[in-house]
């Protein structure tokens, strides 16, 4: 074979190789025929505008080059979204279709994975790519089959949000100390004091004291509290409510809920904060922007308030443990090109630069190792005082606390949800019984017997 023939053959081989690789890429994405990827997320309020801005930027840059358009088709609270997704998973008529990308907690992801509605991300992300993220955040997204389904976008923990304006007024009158709020037992004692004090302000009306504290998740207090005291709470064998540590948790929560010094509602504590119906609450840092600077009373009068954001309370003499939480994003099972496009967006969104921008005006924590290490520079530039305080407390907790994630075994979600609902029901029904004349102690004991069985 002559030299000329060899050169010609080499050119043909190279040409075919280029053509093949181009074809492979062009089989997936085509900038001239962009794919629309639908997205549901739960980042509302200020976070929504931040997310909108980021999505705009992606669509104008990477999305345009690659042929991807991200379209937000729903923004709603996680509870609502999870309900909707549950209906989709159950195939309820009219529930609609799962979007291409949606924010979920691992428990919901497990349900969706069970129905084959979402894809494993192990095929869409390389090991090198995943190594850039905080390992425990990635691990939290792995389900019981060991596969990664939930991709971390932003994380949060729980803290104690204190309406400092109301507390100062209360403290001035009663000598209550904010330091007591560092423990659950202290909160219980302070709540009782608050109830009595507010009741005393209306001497003609008995037992109309106001609620002092609410937890966005009573179940989390049980879960984290037991861990603080060195015991697991939710296991595959069931709930460890028979442990002596659980009685301490019970005593810190139930009597106050029955007496009315703790608020028990179906919504979030930030909602009660809008009307000044609580002084402090435990909740996700993600909700920090929902604590406004004004409270409005039933007569439509309002006042400006300030918040203090403190570390998550600890049971007396127990270890400093807090929950690490935060929804991630899952990708719906679809055509390969759409899955690829969705993954492309997630990689871009969670990259350090975008991640820091997204969490900068929110109560979320970043997910990449690099962003985590640069968080302190972010704190300096933050204007929202609540977010500023939240990040300062987050730094403190990062240094002093051990973070845990919710267990991930099969059936955990149902078990935990059932416990929370039962506990809330017990609190509400117990409160009604107290209002009907029964004593707090009696009801508390009765309920405890039921729960500890």
């Amino acid at each position: 074979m002559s030299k000329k023939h060899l050169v010609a053959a080499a050119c043909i081989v190279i040409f075919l190789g280029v053509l093949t690789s181009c074809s492979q890429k062009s089989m997936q994405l085509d900038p001239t025929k962009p794919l629309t990827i639908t997205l549901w997320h739960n980042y509302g309020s200020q976070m929504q505008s931040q997310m909108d801005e980021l999505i705009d930027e992606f669509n104008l840059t990477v999305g345009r080059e690659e042929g991807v358009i991200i379209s937000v088709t729903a923004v709603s609270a996680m509870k609502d979204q999870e309900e909707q997704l549950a209906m989709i998973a159950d195939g309820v008529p009219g529930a609609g279709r799962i979007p291409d990308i949606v924010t979920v907690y691992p428990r919901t992801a497990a349900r969706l994975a069970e129905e084959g509605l979402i894809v494993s991300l192990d095929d869409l992300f390389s090991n090198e790519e995943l190594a850039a993220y905080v390992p425990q955040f990635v691990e939290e997204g792995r389900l019981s089959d060991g596969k990664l389904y939930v991709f971390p976008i932003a994380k949060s923990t729980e803290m104690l949000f204190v309406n400092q304006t109301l507390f100062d007024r209360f403290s001035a009158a009663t000598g209550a100390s904010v330091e007591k709020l560092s423990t659950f037992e202290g909160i219980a004692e302070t709540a009782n004091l608050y109830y009595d004090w507010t009741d005393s302000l209306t001497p003609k009306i008995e037992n109309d004291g106001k609620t002092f504290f609410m937890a966005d998740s009573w179940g989390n207090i049980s879960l984290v509290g037991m861990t603080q005291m060195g015991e697991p709470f939710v296991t595959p064998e069931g709930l460890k409510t028979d442990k002596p540590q659980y009685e301490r948790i019970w005593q810190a929560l139930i009597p106050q809920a029955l007496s009315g010094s703790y608020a028990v509602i179906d919504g979030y504590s930030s909602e009660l904060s809008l009307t000044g119906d609580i002084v402090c609450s435990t909740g996700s840092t993600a909700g920090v922007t929902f604590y406004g600077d004004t409270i409005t009373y039933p007569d439509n009068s309002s006042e400006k308030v300030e918040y203090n954001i403190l570390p998550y309370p600890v049971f007396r003499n127990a270890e400093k443990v807090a929950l690490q939480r935060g929804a991630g994003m899952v990708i719906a099972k679809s055509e390969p090109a759409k899955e690829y496009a969705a993954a492309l967006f997630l990689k871009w969104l969670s990259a350090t630069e975008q991640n820091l921008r997204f969490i900068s005006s929110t109560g979320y924590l970043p997910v990449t190792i690099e962003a985590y290490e640069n968080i302190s520079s972010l704190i300096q530039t933050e204007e929202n005082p609540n977010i500023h305080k939240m990040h300062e407390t987050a730094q403190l907790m990062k240094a002093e606390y051990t973070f845990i994630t919710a267990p991930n075994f099969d059936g955990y979600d149902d078990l935990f949800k059932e416990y929370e609902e039962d506990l809330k029901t017990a609190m509400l029904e117990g409160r009604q019984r107290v209002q009907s004349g029964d004593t707090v102690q009696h009801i508390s004991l009765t309920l405890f017997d039921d729960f500890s069985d």
Partner: protein
Amino acid sequence: MKKPGFFKLLKDIREYSYEGLNLQRRLFLFFLLFLVTVMSGLLLILFATGIFRVGFNESQIFLKNELNHIEANVEREFGSISMQGVSLSNMLTAEIERKLAEIDLNPASLQDSPSSLEPILDDCLKILSASLNNRTSAAFVILDATVNPALDQAESSRSGLFLKNMLPNTGYVSPSSVRCLRGPASLARENSIYLSPQWQMEFTVLPGDLFHLTMDAAKHGDTDLTKLYLWHPKSRSAADISEGMLLSLPVIASDGTIMGICGFEVSDMLFKMLYTPDNTVFGRIFSILAPVEQEMLDASKALLAGSYTVTSAGIDGPLEINNDINGLTHLTGKEDVTYSGLCQTVNLYPKDTIHSDQVWRLGVVMPWQDLSDYMMAKNLRILFLLVGLLITSALIALLLSRKYIRPVVNAIGNIRNKTCTDYEKTNIQEIDDLINFLAEQETNTALSQSALDDSHRSFTLFETFVENIKTLSPAERLVFNLYMEGYNAREIAEKLYLSINTIKTHNKRIYMKLNVSSRKELLVYVNMMKERNGTLPSVR
């Protein structure tokens, strides 16, 4: 310098032409000229048949289809919502009047009875909740009263309810997805409705806003709600919380008291879900529904719907409307950013309604560059194919001309180098005929040459013969002359009184000197001399 270079080139071409292009180049140029003529004709035909307008025509058809489809939906849906608003107003009116009667109040005293507001709103909440559907993102009622007239801001504060559906994309309204943005917190909680983080207890109303516009319109005396409803464009000041268009109608008691307003919201998100155009052809296409004010489309009050995250942050302020001769509409905003497509007026009101002077336009548009690129891409494709065809044809012409000429050139080359008799057949008739002809000529020439060579050779011997005659001795010459006269040897002996042997001796010497071998040969030369000279030359 260009000019001289150009003229030099022309001169070179002309000189080259004069010197003569070879056959191959002539043939190639002929092919090329033919191709260019055909291509030019093809281009003319394409222009005449409008093929270069394919991109434009296709995009226009597409835009028109999308616009018609969305416009029909908008008119139908918004019309339906308007009628639902009428129904809502009637229901709320009836319920409020019933409640007022129950607590022994009349509509005119609503403002003076703050304590009655919450019970009234409690009943209104149930009606509003039931009225929410998947074509509206919120339902509201604003009463012309405040719960606390003593407050500083009481003048601009109004009691009411604003219930928002956070998931308008579903087939039904889930109670858990409803949020209370305005209204008594206690009412919301009693009805298991969560407060929105943006919750406030009452509405803030300002002169000229939705509340006042609706109330003022109702004061004209006409109580026909179908003529009083108002579609208010998106504006923060509209009920101070909405991020969408608001339909509002007055709530008019039977005694004529305008108790407040009510209505529905079509949010940004909902509009986007329902009226996004097909983006498979144009990725950044979007629809825009906006009021027209002073001949301009007010984008800051527009609802936008596109898969691409088109937001009011990107399209803001007044958009100048221009229609070009091709029927396209161009909306030009700040920094001369232009969106192009098709627009048409959409009717949100029947005729003779109080707000029918409002002009709304619906457009299906995209950034001008996208449309231009699309049309250009279509034309470029055609042009690219034509250029490709031309180049390919030129290459084929080159190859053909070479292939065609090669046998001729080879034949000529071989003619130069070989004899035609040795040349192989080309199977091209004309060339083979020529070769055969030339071969014959060659043979004839060879024979002629041979004859000529012989003749030339004979001619040369004759000259030598004649020259050698001079070398004959006188006696020999006498004998020779007599031979020239035709005498034979015996006769010459008798004439010259010599013996025959002497004559033979002379013969021998004559033959030797004249280089002939016989008398016969001698006589040939003698005859040649006769022919030459006409007579026998005398030889001295």
